[in-house]
Structure formats: C-alpha cells, structure tokens
C-alpha cells in the first residue's frame, strides 16, 4: 500500500453534523447526553489515497468537497465577512498594542501590563484556524492576569515557528512575552522558579521531539513540587507542545510523546482537536494551579473552525462525543479526531454506524462518555498516532476492559503508530493510522 500512498494529496473538507443545534454545556466531567451532541464544524485535512484497495474512494472525496461547497453556500459568505472583521480587529488591536508597547516598557511587567484595547466589539462567533484561536486565547489570558507570562524560543518578533504568539510581544511587551535562550531545561527550570514567585508561565516548546532536554525538569521537578511542598507551593505552568504528524516534517518534529508525560503523577495533559477547544482549553490550562502539558496538533493548526468567544462549551478534562453511532466506538484525540470522523463517514456508506469520541484530556481521562458509549456499541477502537506499546491507548483499553467488561462484544483494539522511530516523512502516510486502518479494526471488532 505504501507505493500508492506516495501519490497522496491533501484535500480539505468539512463534516458538519446536525447544523443548527447549539453546543451543549456540561458542568463537570460526567457522562454526556449523546442525543444532544456538540455540533461544532470539524475541518478535515487528510491524506486521500488513490489506492485501489482503499475504502476512502475518490467519489467519497468528491462528495466531501460537495458537502463543503454546500456549507460554503449556506454559511461561507457570512463567515468570510466575520473573518475579515475578526482579522481587521486582530490587526487593529495589534497596532494599538504596538503603540502602547513602544510608549512604555521599561518598568516591571506586573504594573506595566497592556490589556487589549477593544477598538470595536468582536463578533461572538469567529471562524479561525487553531493558531489564531490559540493566539486569541493567550491574548485574553495575558490581558486578564498580569501574572501570566509567555516564554519560549522565537516567540517574540517571529511569533513562534507556527505564529501562535504572533503580535503578542508587541502588545504585551518583552517582559511578558519572552524570547528565551535556546535551552529547554533552562526554559522549564526558570519557569518553575517564576511559578514559585507567583507567576503563571506559559512555555512554548518548539517541536515535540525537542521537549526531552527539559524532560528532567518536567518529571522530577515540575510534576512533583506541589507534592514536595505539601501544597504550600503550586506549579501553574503550561507547557505547549506541537503534536503529531501529517505535516511532512523532519525527524523529531512529528512525534506524539504524550505517554511519557501521562505516566508521571502531578501532570495534567490535554490535546484539543478544534479551534474552539484550543481557544478555551488554553485559557483553562493557564487558570489551572497544576502543571498542564498542552499538546497542539500541528495538522489542525490551519484548518478553520468556528470559535465561540463567549461560551465555553466543555470543561478542560472532559471527553466528548463528536459523532453518534451504534455499531462501534472510536476514541481519538488531537490530529486523529478528523481521521476517525472520516472513517465514520465511510463506514456510514457501508451501512455501519460508528460513534466517535474526542478524548481531549489524556490525563486525567474522562471515562464516563467512553463507558456509556461502549455500553451502547459493545465495541471500542482506540486510534492514536503514538506507538501502541505502553501508550494512552493501552491505558484506555485496560480501563474500559475493567469497567465495561460485560458490555464488550469484542476485545478493545488499538490502532496506533508502529513501534518504530517515526519514519522519514515520505513514509508517514504508512506509519500514521488512516481511516482505512481504523476501518480494518472496525471489521475485526465486528467479526467477533
């Protein structure tokens, strides 16, 4: 299959479920009412195979594109207007911030913060790519709390290698948006000291494979310091890490290292898959008094989605059903969520109804929606980019097997990256689970 997959091309499509339903709100991590689902538009950027064996056929791609056009006809004109307004606002606030930043930035950050100046009210719903949603969430956190500071490599004038922090240094000044020396242990270790001082540092790690020079500070210090202090000192540090593959990058740039952190007590780990989740979850992570590892799926950085800037739909550590179904449940997170949704689309054409759950929080895991779903479907497939051995998928499989044994009609199956180093980019389409591999697992589960 690998040969034909080298001819892969990227297409963009949007899968919309039940447009018109409002996003539900949940006040805790308890079970979700699957009848009233979150209806947020989910963009899909996915390699489409011309493999004759692929069940993701060209006609399906064509249909997705039609669907997208349909959506655009319905909503896109309004959305484009909103988007232009939003971008104009972003530009305006950046310019205002720049002027303010130039006016005065010698004093201490706490007394010198530059809150966002609202030139014009922003629309409640904005269509933003995740990078802009994160940018807006960080801006809001910086404006709301003078103790919030950003630290990382190239996050100042450049705005980060992915531009997530674009314009923030101009707006809030170099004392609150700090370009640091190129040293991950140094960044995290000094962030710990700043947290001891009462700051709330938000650290950017440039790429997933570059977090490991800081791994010691994260696991032996950051994760344990609240416990070592018997709670007298807390560690409100957020570590943002670009996550996962699908972007054709070089070694160390496409990994999914969540299991290393999920094994460490004291850390909270989350991974949004949509711009709206990214917008809210980054603010919730910053508000947490515990250290949070915040994985940002790079393959989701640029597809746009609606961001509701007024209402936060779901708490930080809640998983969420993003598509209802009855035959089997697919659990995914970060860049695998759109892949799982696509598998569900194909399965639907084949007469199979798959439920898809976006895990969102990897530590702790909100199992209630998973267990409720498995009670209904009897089958669970966990899809992740990381290697399967000793992984988050392993943990989900073990816990669901323990807690829903009598509901299961088949073993819990994992669809994961292989236990190899992440391969050269030309092979990533083989390494990373795609919709076909999820569907193959569905076949196996349903064969029991």
């Amino acid at each position, binding site marked *: 299959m690998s040969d034909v997959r080298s001819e892969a091309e990227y297409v963009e499509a949007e899968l919309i479920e039940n447009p018109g339903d409002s996003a539900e709100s949940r006040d805790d991590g308890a079970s979700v009412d699957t009848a009233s689902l979150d209806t947020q538009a989910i963009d899909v950027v996915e390699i489409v195979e011309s493999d004759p064996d692929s069940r993701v056929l060209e006609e399906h791609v064509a249909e997705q594109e039609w669907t997208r056009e349909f959506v655009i006809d319905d909503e896109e004109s309004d959305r484009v207007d909103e988007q232009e307004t939003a971008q104009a606002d972003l530009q305006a606030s950046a310019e205002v911030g720049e002027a303010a930043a130039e006016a005065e930035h010698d004093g201490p950050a706490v007394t010198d913060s530059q809150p966002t100046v609202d030139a014009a009210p922003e629309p409640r719903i904005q269509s933003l790519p995740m990078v802009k949603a994160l940018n807006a969430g960080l801006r809001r956190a910086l404006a709301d709390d003078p103790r919030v500071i950003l630290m990382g490599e190239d996050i100042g004038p450049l705005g980060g290698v992915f531009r997530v922090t674009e314009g923030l240094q101009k707006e809030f000044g170099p004392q609150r948006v700090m370009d640091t020396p190129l040293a991950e242990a*140094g960044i*995290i*270790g*000094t962030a*710990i*000291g700043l947290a*001891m*001082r009462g700051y709330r540092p938000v650290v950017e790690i440039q790429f997933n494979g570059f977090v490991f*020079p800081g791994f010691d*500070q994260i696991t032996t210090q950051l994760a344990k310091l609240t416990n070592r202090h018997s709670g007298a000192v807390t560690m409100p540090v957020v570590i943002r890490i670009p996550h996962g593959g699908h972007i054709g990058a070089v070694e160390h740039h496409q990994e999914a290292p969540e299991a290393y952190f999920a094994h460490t007590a004291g850390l909270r780990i989350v991974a949004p898959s949509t711009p709206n989740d990214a917008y809210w979850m980054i603010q919730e992570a910053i508000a947490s008094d515990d250290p949070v590892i915040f994985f940002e799926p790079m393959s989701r950085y640029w597809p746009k989605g609606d961001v509701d800037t007024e209402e936060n739909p779901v708490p930080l550590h809640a998983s969420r059903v993003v598509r209802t179904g009855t035959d089997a449940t697919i659990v995914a997170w970060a860049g695998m969520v759109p892949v799982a949704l696509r598998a569900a689309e194909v399965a639907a054409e084949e007469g199979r109804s798959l439920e898809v759950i976006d895990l969102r929080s990897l530590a702790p895991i909100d199992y209630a929606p998973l267990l409720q779903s498995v009670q209904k479907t009897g089958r669970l497939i966990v899809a992740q980019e990381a290697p399967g051995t000793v992984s988050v998928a392993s943990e989900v499989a073990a816990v669901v097997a323990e807690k829903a044994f009598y509901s299961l009609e088949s073993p819990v199956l994992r669809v994961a990256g292989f236990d190899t180093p992440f391969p050269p980019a030309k092979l990533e389409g083989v390494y990373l689970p795609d919709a076909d591999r999820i569907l193959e697992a569905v076949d196996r589960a349903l064969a029991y």
Partner: protein
Amino acid sequence: MVATNEIPRPANTVQLLTAEGRFQPSETSAEYLPYLERLDENDYRRFYRDMVRVRALDHEAANLQRQGQLGLWVPSEGQEGAQVGSAHAAKPQDHLFPSYREHAVGMVRGIDPIGIIGLLRGTTHGGWDPTDPAVGNFHLYTLVIGSQTLHATGYAMGMKLDGKVGTGDPSKDEASIVYFGDGATSQGDVNEAYVFAASYQTPQVFFLQNNHWAISVPVSTQSRTPLYLRSSGFGIPGVQIDGNDVLAAYAVTAKHLDDARNGEGPSMIEALTYRMGAHTSSDDPSKYRTDEELASWAERDPIRRFRVFLEEQGVGQGFFDSADEEAADLAADIRRRTLELAPPPVASMFQHVYSEPHPVTDEQRRWLEEYEASFGGDA
C-alpha cells in the same frame, strides 16, 4: 583513565583568616573588608555557635543513621564556614535555594532541623514550608543535582519582573542565592542557569561549595579549570574564596548579594572547602581518597580556625563551653524528636499530588481505604 585531584591553585583566593585562625586578610580581600564592619562581637559569637550546632547535629544524625533510625545521612562537617558565613550575608527578603547538604544555611535562616531529619528518615519529601515566614525564604532541598540552580534563576527573574531590584531602597531590593557543588557544575542545568542569569541579568549569587569530591570522583574530573573561572565565560564574574574561613564567606557573599540587589546582575562565588565525612552514610571515603588529603584539610577546620580568632578577640572559655552545651542540647533534642517521628498518614500519599481534585488519585485513595478496612481491626 584516572584524573588527579590537583588543580592549579590561583594565588588570588580571598582569605581573611589564616589556616591557623589569625586575622590576616589577603591582598585580594581589600574590597570585601568594609563588609566586616557590619559585624559586631555578638555576630561573631553567633557564627561560632551556628557552626558548632550544625556539627553536633551532624554527629548525632550520623549516629542515628548507624542505629537504624535514619535511612541516610548527608554530613556537612567541614563545610560549616562556607555555609554559616554566606547564610548570614543574606538579608531577610533574600531567597535561598539549597542543594541537600546546606543544613547550616537552613538553620541560620530558621528552619527546624527536624525537617531535614524527616527527609532522611523517610517521613517527608519536604520538611519545611518555604512560604512560612519563620524559615527565612529557605527553599526545599533538591536532590537532582543542579536542578535548583534554574529555579533560583527563574525566581530571580521574577524578582526583577516585580521591580524589586535596584530601587535604591535597600529594604526592598531582593536577590536569590543558590547553593550547589563541584559535581553539579558539570550538569547542563547549572550551565543553562548561567546562560539565563546572564541573559536576564538576574539579581543572583551562585554559591559553589567546591568540597573536592562528587561522591568518589575528584573535582579534577569535573573540570581542569578552576571553577570560579567557568562562569566568566558566561558573562558572570566569579571569585574564589577560602570556604573554611567563615569571615571570608560572609564578607564576599554580602558584597555580591548587595551588588545583585543593586541591579548589577549575577555573580558566582567558589568556596574552596572539604567534605570531611562521606558523601552520605552510604559510602566509604577510604576507598577513594587519602589520609594525607583528609589530614591537610583537618588542619584548616573552619570551627577551630574561628575559635582561635575569637580567642584572640578576647572571648573566654565560658562562651565556648556554653556553645558546646547548647549544641549538645540541640543534639539531644534532635535524638528525642527523631525517635518520635512517626510515618505520615497513609492518606497523605494522595494529597497534594495535584492542587485540584483528580479522579485517579481520588479513586486509588478510596480503594486503598476500603482495602485496608477489609482487614478489620484498628489498622
């Protein structure tokens, strides 16, 4: 390959007391002498008492370890001069970040040494609360070598962000001082701390106690360059002092902390000293170092030297006797309270893992409670 432990010794080491204990400042000490004027006879006596107290703690704790009451002991004997002098140089608003051998620094700042005992008896990972005003901003011990240097640097970055540096008001300006050893200087964290401290010009003193041995490995394996010169490559000026000279440790640290508070950026002090005992109660120094080396450092013992100095100042035997008595009382008190130190409650294992409720620890705590209850009785 075997490295020798002989490093070229520069002639400019700052020293105020000779090895015998006579007040005879080295030429390099001129700029530090004014800081001695801050001290009066009561301070001198306090320095002596502090050194004697921590040595008594050391001996008692070593005995407790040998008697099975402590899992481990980390002796500080020989390093009292560097620790007591530098600790007294810090102002109340300064923050001190220890490694794990800074018993005297902690006691000077006000911690109850039973906290150290608890750490090594296995009843706590902390032992004191650095936010408690009674402990003088003495932060927790850090066992991973060198990690705390970055915490101290980040903390000092925060002091600067808070505008607590170079205000011109000595009662408001703050600085941090971090303690580490010769082995730690090889760690990446220490070198990154130098980088960050230099880049952000933190109000900070790096206080290196070069006790010449990282467990069994001589300092010459860590560095072929005198360690006080290392930091200058990062843009941080360094000075080497006789670390067994409590007055030199005080005066030099006082100046560098003052400079840091005044906004002159970070600096580094290498205190030459010697760990008279083992690295911890778990090793045998006779396997890796010579009796001759030990004896040469015994001749420069910081307590004996300072006693000679005090005697020359006219301090009488009565004071020394009362200091010994006070130290013996401390040791007896520590022994009594060590034996009373009970294991922490089981539930405490699950507390403060997170600062907010967490379903995994909550569920495991509940399970353990039910499991233990299933045995019945008083357990």
